[in-house]
Structure formats: C-alpha cells, structure tokens
C-alpha cells in the first residue's frame, strides 16, 4: 500500500497535485474533462474585492516551450465568487484554495475576511502577478512590503495563509524568510517570469500589455531551482510549480523540497494533465517502493 496523502498547515490533501491559479478558473470548465474529486486541491483564479476587467487583447502569446500571458487578473469579484463559484467547489471532495489578489492591503484583507465562514481550505495570497500596475507584485518584490502584508492578512485570516511568491526577485530565500517571519503557513512558487515577445513582421509587441508572464515547460528548471532555494531557507511547507507536465516533473519538485505541486499552463495543452500526474506519481511510488509520499519531500541528495 502507498500513502499519497500530504498535510500542509494542518490541511490534508488526498494527493499532492493541485491546479495553479489562473489556469483552471474555479474548476467549472475543466470539470467537463476531469473528475475534480481526484485532485489533491484546486487553487482558483485570483479573486479581488470588486470585479476586475483585466488587460486589453492580445493577452496570450506562445513562446518556445511555453507561453506568455497578460490577462491582468480579470475576475468577477468576491460577490460572484461566493454566490456562484464557491457552491460549485463545495460539491467536490477536494481542498479548495482561493487565490486572493488586490491593489491595497485593505483589498486583500476584505476578501480574506469574507472567506472566514466558508469551506475554503486555504488562502493563497497573490503578491506576484507581473501583469497589473498596482498591488500584487509590488508586495512581492520587497521583503518589508511582503512581511507587512503577510502579517496583516495573518491577523485576519481564519484559514492557513500561503504566500505566492514571484521569481522576479534577486534572492528567493530572502523573500521566503520574510513570509515565514510574518507568520505565513506556507509559500507557493513560482509565479510567472516576466517576459516579452515581439512580432518581427509587424514590428509590434505580441501582447497588448507589452510584457507578460512566462509559464510552461520552458520555465521548469528555474522553478525547481527556486523551490530548492526556498526550501533551504524556510521550514514552512512549499507548494511548487512552474512548467509541470508529467509525474516526473512533479516528483522533481518534491525532491527539491515541495510538499505539494500545481499543474498550470499544461492544463491548456492537455486538459487531463492533473489526473495523469496523479496516476504517474502512484506508479513511481510503486516502482521505487516509496510507501509514504512525504518521504520524497526534499529527498534530493
């Protein structure tokens, strides 16, 4: 028998496979393809206190082995989330995690407080979206700002707080330590890497926003390295992500120090990726006689 259960900040996931914020909506669209009950957890698209319209189009562009996006956190806001998305999520036996975004600390706290009496299992705080002008990444590229917002949110949060970190920093270990020092229950990384693409035929930017966040298999080695560095820096659990396409990729992140993983851009490439990763992890455990999946966390030698 193998045990794929993982506990993060007191919340038990049936397996370590989750969905990366912004790639899976609130689960409705991909519920047509996969049984959401099989997921370890489902992390929603960013939710703000009021509806956000997002950026102009084009918002997405393909790059070698990856993609750029500059959606700009378009979302219907917390009222619609509570009325429509949350009841949908509540039907499933998976840990629902809301990704929270905002322009000010107060915006974040408002959403966090409204989650208090819900079945949401964890809060993932987006301080790392590279595609909006105010908020988000502004809190995630400076240790003092990150410490401050984490502390404010922790003071109000009823669920475990996971701070989602940006790779667009000089020292990821320093950012991870700031989140931990402020009381974060965990961290997730990496968000997308800021990038750019130019259409040489039209001499125009591929994205209306000019810059966008790079995701997909192209960023995986960077993400594995950063998860490893963060794991060396802190003792709180880490949710690792960045280009995971297969179970082998997921295991690599766990060996680097992640307690759980997220499938992101690859949902767009193969809507069944999450399930294939879950099944592949089980096969790996059987093949190598790994009885407890937690034995893989940080087990790189």
């Amino acid at each position, binding site marked *: 028998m193998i045990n794929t259960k993982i506990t993060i900040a007191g919340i038990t996931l049936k397996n370590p496979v989750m969905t990366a914020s*912004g*790639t*899976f*909506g609130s689960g409705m*669209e*991909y519920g*047509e*393809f*996969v*049984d959401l009950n099989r997921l370890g957890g489902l992390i929603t*698209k960013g939710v703000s206190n009021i*509806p*956000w*319209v*997002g950026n102009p*189009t*084009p*918002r*997405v*562009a*393909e790059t*070698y*082995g*990856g*993609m750029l*996006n500059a*959606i700009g956190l*378009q979302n*219907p*806001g917390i009222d*619609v989330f509570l009325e429509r998305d949350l009841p949908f999520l509540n039907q499933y036996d998976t840990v629902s995690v809301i990704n929270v975004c905002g322009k000010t600390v107060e915006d974040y706290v408002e959403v966090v407080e409204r989650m208090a009496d819900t079945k949401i299992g964890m809060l993932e705080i987006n301080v790392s979206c590279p595609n909006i002008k105010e908020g988000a990444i502004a809190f995630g590229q400076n240790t003092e700002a990150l410490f401050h917002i984490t502390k404010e949110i922790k003071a109000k949060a009823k669920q475990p707080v996971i701070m989602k970190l940006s790779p667009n920093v000089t020292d990821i270990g320093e950012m991870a330590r700031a989140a931990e020092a402020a009381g974060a229950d965990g961290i997730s990384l990496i968000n997308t890497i800021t990038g750019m693409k130019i259409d040489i035929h039209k001499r125009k930017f591929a994205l209306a926003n000019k810059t966008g966040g790079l995701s*997909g*298999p192209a960023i995986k080695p960077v993400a594995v390295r950063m998860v490893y560095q963060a794991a060396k820096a802190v003792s709180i659990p880490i949710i690792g992500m960045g280009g995971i396409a297969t179970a082998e990729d997921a295991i690599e992140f766990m060996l680097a120090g992640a307690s759980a993983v997220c499938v992101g*851009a*690859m*949902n*767009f*490439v*193969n*809507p*069944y990726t999450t*399930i*294939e990763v879950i*099944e592949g992890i089980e096969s790996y455990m059987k093949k190598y006689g790994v009885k407890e999946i937690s034995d893989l966390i940080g087990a790189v030698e």
Partner: protein
Amino acid sequence: MSQAEETKGNLKKKETAIVSLQREIAPGIFDLWVKTDLAGNAKAGQFISIYPKDKSTLLPRPISICEIDRMKQRIRLVYRVQGVGTMEFSRYQQGEEISILGNLGNGFPIDKTKGKKTLMIAGGIGIPPMLQAAKDTQGEVTFVVGYRDQNLFLLEDMKKYGTVFIATEDGSVGTHGNVMDAMKENEIKADLIFSCGPLPMLKAIKQFAQEEEIEAYLSLEEKMACGVGACLGCVCKTKKVDHHSHVHNTRICADGPVFDATEVEI
C-alpha cells in the same frame, strides 16, 4: 488513450483523430478532412483545436469547422498556413493520427434562418465556416465573399448551397474591392447576416447591419490558450456586463465565437 481520456458523456473532449484527406486548395490554404467521432455533435460555426506534435509549440490551434460529414464521422477544416503550428499541420498525411480538442464554441444560430434570406458574408480564411452554416440553413442563402486574388477556394462548394457574389482585392474576379463594395454594387438585401473574416470587415458589417436594421451574427477570433473558457485569454469587449465574467468582457472561445453584432464592441 489514458484512463482519464476515456471519461464518457462529456460534451468536449481531447481525442485522437485520423487524417483522411489533405490537399492544398490555394497557395497556403489547406483542406483537411479528419475522421473523428466529434463529428456527431459538431455544429456550424463551432471550432476544433489541433495540438501540434512539436512540443516546442504547446498551445492548441483553434480552427473553425468548414464542413461536417455526420454519416462518415468526418470534419473538414480549411486553414491558412500562418505560423509554425499550421506549417506542421500542412504536412499531415492521410492515415496520420492527430490530437484534437472539440467541439468548442457556440456556433451560428441556425434556427433563426427558417424562412429567411440569409446572407453569408466572409473574407479570406473567414470563408470556411460559412459552408456548413449554409448547408444547415433552412432558407435562401446568398454568399458575399472576399478574396485577395483569383484563388477562389471553396467557391464550387458554396455554389451548391446558394448564389455567390465575389469581391477580390486585386480586381481579378467580381467586384474590385471588398465585400462591402460587392454588396453595394449588387444591391444585396437580406433578413439575416452570418459573417466571419478580418476585423475591419466585421466592423463594417456591424455598422451596416445597424443602419439597415438587419439581425447579424459575427464569428470573432482572438489569440487563445485553453480554448475552453478557463484562461480568459481571448476576450472581446461587450456592450452589457457579461453574464459570466461580470465585467464588459466576454470569452470568445466559450461564449462565442459567434456573437450578436449588437452585443459586442469591436
């Protein structure tokens, strides 16, 4: 096929299709027939996404359905080679297995055509989806189609279902100019418009339909990632607050690609 891929009863699915025929019907324009059981539920105006095999090009390419052969379980896709993905597709041979996602999007409101004179206005690579729309229409059909030059792909197919008026950019066939010029020159009237093509053309049709008070449905396109409504990459501005997004943006892939012209701000 993995266990996950076998999930039954789903409306949309990723599956393996078999190339049954492919030929180049005009320079850079390819006519691809694939065998797929998605044909059973496919509708005119919907689209299929094809996944390139080259793993450096990850995202599925959305291509509108040109024709559906429900009996033989085949779907026809006519596309233009535009980049690395479509370049790969153009090399697919008969019998080759390809990975597709479908059926995506809403399709044209065919039930509105009953007893009406429907005008199919299309330009360039916007022409293909009009063919199945015309086949399914329950009334009189007139096509007004714009091409660059004398490479009049799909013309013979369209003639089977209605009268065809042509405009060419170089003036080699029909009206010299665009579809709007052909409309004026031939004094074309209609009760209903279905349209697909370049954005400037769609803008002109939206304005024309408004002035003439004709109901019009436009098939839009945008750079897409997921194709199923999750990523919010392919949005279009809307007149009213959208029912799903709760902002003035609608998802072209999931809530379109066909929209009532009065509802979208293009």
